[in-house]
């Protein structure tokens, strides 16, 4: 019941260390032995000298981000990355999906596969593979898609979950919509589910809920890590009500991805507040759950209960297949009570539609095409991707 994480590109290698720190701190502060053991087993392995090593493979086409991630973990003295668990090159992918997917991916296929294989074989039992990447750049998106494909070929029965960071709507990378379209259309086939965080949404959480004045990328990453941690840490589930679940990813998928046409998952977590307010708040369960329900209905992913109301769900699912409750007696990450909601709903429909609309606009004028064709991605490849995504948009629209 261990998770192997694959950190891809700058984004994956920045959020990854935050996630490991979050789960480490959470499991350490808990003071509950089974919880700690379960969490540690899930994310780390222990060397003979008792050092915790993350079950993670770090991949990037340039060295700076991985160096920082590895150094910071070592310096913490609490956990570290495996010495030989990373693979990097020097020249980067230039924000070019085609460069990542057609050139770097195949070139380094064996090296990356070896690294993942080593981590997987180290697990007593594999709960699943968790790949973390952005969709806007070149490595996370392009190499990430290629690596996911390789992993699917290597482990056809394993659960593969991709965590995707979607960029700000008003640009971080000019060709981000192209890179996103090419990534999403392929991952949809390869992955079991896509857990999405949008920078715009997380930014709002930081500014409005947590009152952070000068938001940095580190702040964004911490919120994402917190939300992911709240879901991935051990919990009692429907299938496993008195022991911490030994099949967390499998259960997550079976509750949420009932149909292969619908794989987009979004997360919300409450409460989210600045540390100073933490000491002064008290929450009740009904209050929290009511807020979450409102957020689900309003498609708002910020703050704001009964989840069993059939009006919320599609009619073609049996009623007990729609909602699952997991809980844990252990408070998460400093919050006395917290609740997270993972949903497969229309909440990502509008951002996805916007992304496709902008990419299509650019495609019609053929802008930047020469940058992709020179590495082997043709206009037809683009058309195929657009077709796949329009299909997904249509499916979600008709819910």
């Amino acid at each position: 019941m261990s998770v192997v994480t694959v950190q891809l590109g700058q984004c994956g290698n920045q959020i990854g260390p935050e996630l490991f720190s979050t789960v480490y701190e959470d499991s350490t502060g808990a003071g509950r032995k089974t919880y700690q053991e379960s969490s540690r087993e899930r994310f780390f392995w222990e060397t003979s000298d008792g050092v915790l090593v993350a079950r993670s493979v770090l991949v990037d086409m340039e060295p700076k981000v991985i160096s920082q991630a590895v150094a910071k973990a070592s310096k913490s003295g609490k956990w570290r990355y495996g010495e030989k668990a990373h693979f990097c090159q020097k020249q980067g992918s230039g924000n070019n999906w085609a460069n990542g997917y057609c050139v770097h991916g195949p070139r380094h296929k064996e090296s990356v596969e070896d690294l993942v294989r080593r981590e997987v074989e180290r697990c007593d039992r594999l709960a699943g593979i968790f790949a973390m990447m952005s969709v806007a750049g070149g490595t996370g998106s392009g190499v990430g898609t290629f690596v996911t494909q390789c992993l699917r070929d290597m482990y056809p029965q394993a659960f593969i979950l991709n965590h995707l960071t979607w960029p700000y709507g008003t640009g971080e990378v000019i060709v981000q919509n192209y890179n996103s379209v090419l990534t999403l259309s392929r991952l949809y086939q390869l992955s079991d589910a896509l857990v999405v965080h949008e920078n715009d949404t997380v930014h709002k959480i930081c500014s409005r809920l947590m009152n952070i004045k000068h938001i940095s990328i580190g702040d964004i990453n911490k919120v994402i890590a917190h939300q992911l941690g709240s879901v991935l840490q051990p919990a009692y589930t429907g299938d496993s009500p008195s022991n911490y679940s030994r099949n967390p990813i499998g259960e997550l998928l079976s509750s949420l991805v009932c149909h292969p046409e619908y794989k987009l998952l979004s997360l919300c977590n409450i409460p989210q507040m600045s540390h100073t307010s933490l000491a002064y708040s008290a929450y009740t369960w009904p209050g929290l759950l009511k807020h979450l329900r409102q957020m689900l209905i309003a498609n708002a992913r910020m703050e704001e209960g009964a989840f069993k109301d059939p009006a919320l769900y599609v009619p073609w699912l049996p009623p007990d297949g729609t909602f699952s409750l997991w809980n844990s007696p252990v408070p998460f990450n400093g919050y006395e009570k917290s609740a997270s909601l993972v949903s497969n709903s229309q909440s990502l429909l509008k951002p996805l539609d916007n992304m496709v609309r902008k990419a299509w606009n650019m495609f019609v004028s053929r802008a930047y095409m020469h940058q992709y064709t020179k590495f082997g991605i043709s206009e037809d490849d683009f058309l195929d991707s657009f077709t796949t995504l329009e299909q997904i948009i249509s499916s979600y629209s008709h819910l």
Partner: protein
Amino acid sequence: MGVRTVCFCRRSDGGGGGATGSRISGLRARAVLVDMEEGVLSEVLQGPLRQLFSTTQLISDVSGSGNNWAVGHHSYGSVYREQIVDQVRRAAEQCDCLQCFFIIHSMGGGTGSGLGTRVLKLLEDEFPEVCRLVTAVYPSAEDDVITSPYNSVLAMRELTEHADCVLPIENQSLVDIVSKIQHMAHTGKPGSVIKKDSTIISGQGGVAKTEKPFDAMNNIVANLLLNITSSARFEGSLNMDLNEIAMNLVPFPRLHYLVSSLTPLYTLADVNIPTRRLDQMFTDAFSKDHQLMRADPKHNLYLACALMLRGNVQLSDLRRNIERLRPTLSFVQWNTEGWKTGLCSVPPVGHTHSLLALANNTCVKPSFMELRERFVRLYRKKAHLHHYLGVDGMDVSGFSEALSSLTGLIDQYSQLDSTNTAPSQDPPRLNIAC
């Protein structure tokens, strides 16, 4: 490509440390210096940076190119081809990972312009996969070299066809920026004392002590190149390397002329930096007074824009300013949110933060049109043509093709400008069978 200085220099094999044991001893520049006259190169070899270069890296001749592009491109180009390729290859072999060539030359003369563009073609042939970024200094209208329009237009055709990215710089803009800074430094108004070594014209952190003519102007260009490579050399939360610049800012192969601006020009001695001043830095980046060529991107059409921030600037400052400035700018219909952003943690020496903006914008059109005007005025009268046609390898078609290349480029910009006036509507989406 390594980190910090290893990007531009490598450790030399024999300890070449000078008696001073300066911080540059043991480093060799990854560079090839070419000039067909000896004066400037000799100065380099005798100057404070001499330890950075071994004599084999300097390729020179005696008589210069006489401000004649054809002499530089064809005559010297053929004579020195082997030697140049050889030196570049040696430098390239010393790199773990070669990412980019910086080619730096002026457009108006004979060597930089002619031999420089010959070298550009050579690099494309020998190292086709490596990005070629050209920093080209364009002559002002009042330039005293009569044939500079010929040299510039002949060179431009090469740049359009063989460079991946061009950063055009105009001497006049550099002059204007220098006088602006010097004026500020001498007003003596209270609260307007400029912090020492914090201007983009001072060679802050540099080795040279005395100021020569053009030093101030050249420092601006040096700072431009430092800022462009900062993310490749230092860490940051959002890295932006040179390949990404070419990828994001060049939507169509020939439209690769990027107007650059550097802000702030100087830091006032008052260390406190309120948000308002940070926002002013962003506003200035788009003002025509801060561009390194005479162009006004704010009142023309953007195809793409890159913002590279260094130092103590956060993501939220960046996002806030993009939101603020976006409505004041025109972007082409298919790239309405065409921003490429980078955050590097390490500021330039003497500053707490800085911003480099690179714009692919139709504002370059007027400068190119002026250049074509000056060319045509000479060409119509066939003035000085015989100096060029007398050179082996040069014939009249070279001129006519260069002119039509420039005209074609100007037309492409005009076409884009015309799309700006038409009402924008999203093209219909792909229809799929449900």
